[in-house]
């Protein structure tokens, strides 16, 4: 907080950077009424569900992606000897309030889209919204941790993670109907990004699944999130066990 002007500008930038994606969608919809069979409020719903999930995940554990840097400068060793779980220290270190920018912006769009959607709000649909957001946050958190664990193997390749986190966010902002079916299948069954918002949103918005997966998949997000989180925890454990400091 030492550089006040810079802090204000960085928070604004975070606010605007997610807004930029939405401005793109907005401009697209000045030329058409539907993208892949989805209207603007429906795309906005997908966009904001993904944005809130990523924003919360980034706030909670986005910092773990700095692992490669910590290995290089040796500060990981300092954390290892403290009596607090390393993962918690990594996540809490440099807790950046400016990351609230993304959450506020996406949250605003979420509220807006829900007032504009033509959806019959039954109980199951209402309950599924917070479930979707929590599961989505957990999935992105797990991806952050998996990516960090991967850096025990290759420290320079942290940018690969961006393809899954920010790329995954970018992917799931748009309706699954516009992508090639094999891509949607891969992104749901192999890399479970589709469970962040696509699958639950199909039920909430009452849309047909473009790849025809069983409808039970639309309720599976929490289970997928739990499995992925377990995988992340395991990978982290293996990584930290195999870590050999160079010492000094």
């Amino acid at each position, binding site marked *: 907080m030492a550089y006040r002007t*810079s802090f204000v500008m*960085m928070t*604004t*930038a975070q606010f605007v950077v997610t807004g930029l994606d939405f*401005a*793109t969608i907005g401009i697209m919809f000045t030329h058409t009424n539907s993208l892949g069979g989805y209207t603007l409020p429906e795309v906005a719903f997908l966009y904001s569900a993904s944005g809130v999930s990523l924003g919360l995940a980034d706030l909670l554990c986005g910092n773990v992606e700095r692992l490669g840097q910590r290995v290089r400068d040796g500060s990981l060793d300092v954390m290892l000897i403290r009596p607090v779980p390393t993962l918690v220290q990594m996540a809490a270190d440099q807790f950046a309030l400016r990351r609230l920018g993304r959450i506020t912006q996406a949250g605003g769009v979420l509220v807006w889209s829900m007032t504009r959607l033509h959806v019959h709000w039954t109980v199951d649909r209402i309950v599924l919204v917070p479930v979707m957001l929590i599961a989505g946050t957990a999935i992105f958190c797990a991806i952050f941790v998996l990516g960090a664990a991967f850096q025990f193997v290759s420290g*320079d*390749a942290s940018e690969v993670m961006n393809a899954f986190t920010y790329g995954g966010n970018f992917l799931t902002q748009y309706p699954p109907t*516009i992508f090639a079916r094999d891509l949607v299948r891969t992104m749901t069954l192999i890399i479970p990004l589709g469970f962040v918002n696509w699958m639950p949103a199909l039920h909430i918005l009452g849309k047909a699944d473009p790849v025809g997966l069983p409808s039970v998949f639309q309720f599976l997000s929490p289970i997928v999130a739990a499995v992925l989180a377990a995988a992340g925890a395991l990978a982290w454990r293996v990584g930290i066990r195999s870590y050999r400091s160079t010492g000094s």
Partner: protein
Amino acid sequence: MAVYAAVYWRSFRRYSTYRAATYAGIFTNTIFGFIMAYTYIALWHARPHLGGYNQTQAVTYVFLGQALLLTCAIFGGGFSEEFAERLRKGDIAIDLYRPVNLQGWWLASDLGRAGFHFLGRGIAPLLIGALVFQLQLTTDPLVWLGFIASVFLGVVVSFGLRYLVALSGFWLMDSRGVEQLAGLVAMFMSGMVLPLTVFPTWLGDVARVLPWSAMLQVPVDVLLGKRSALSALRFEAIWAVIVLVLGQALTAVATRRVVVQGG
């Protein structure tokens, strides 16, 4: 001149050293290219010939965008991270002590970076994109020559703008906030998020005469045959001169603020 060439070459070599980072970057650019390509296909499916492009040209635009995103450092970065670091730590005093032009030194360094990013990171996503999607890539060597020249001037304009932003560090000490905001403006106004011809008319018209369009919209239009290389290069050259002259003038003002703690 020899010193600038040396700086250029060292910078090129420096970026080419990190192989894993390069492969990771190619992977990321390709993934983003694919996602954007599908969104453009959906949009151009709904509105064929939107913004004067057909669907093939729109997808080509996407992959050229991924090729130039880092080359022209559209989102910022490049030399300015190191520049800001030297400013915070005070190493900038050493740079000022050198018998070379400060802006020229960093321009040479940034051109080296851009050269590597174009060859090492730009071409691969474009080729992978061409394997999966139908792209419109001309076989006319003259058009490619015009495109390369246009990209070169685009990098110079981009450097000039980022240099002006980086100089704000002399007053703010921490220029990260300004840099992020400047990066966002550039993403939007260069045509990176959507071609400027697709913008609402008034905004698109304004954006097309501003310097940011030199980073992406102008070079892409040269390659797609939408704009003559001569008109494009003239436009970019004018902006390159303006930003570099401004940079020179602001450097003079900024360096007067430097207080070196001797000892």
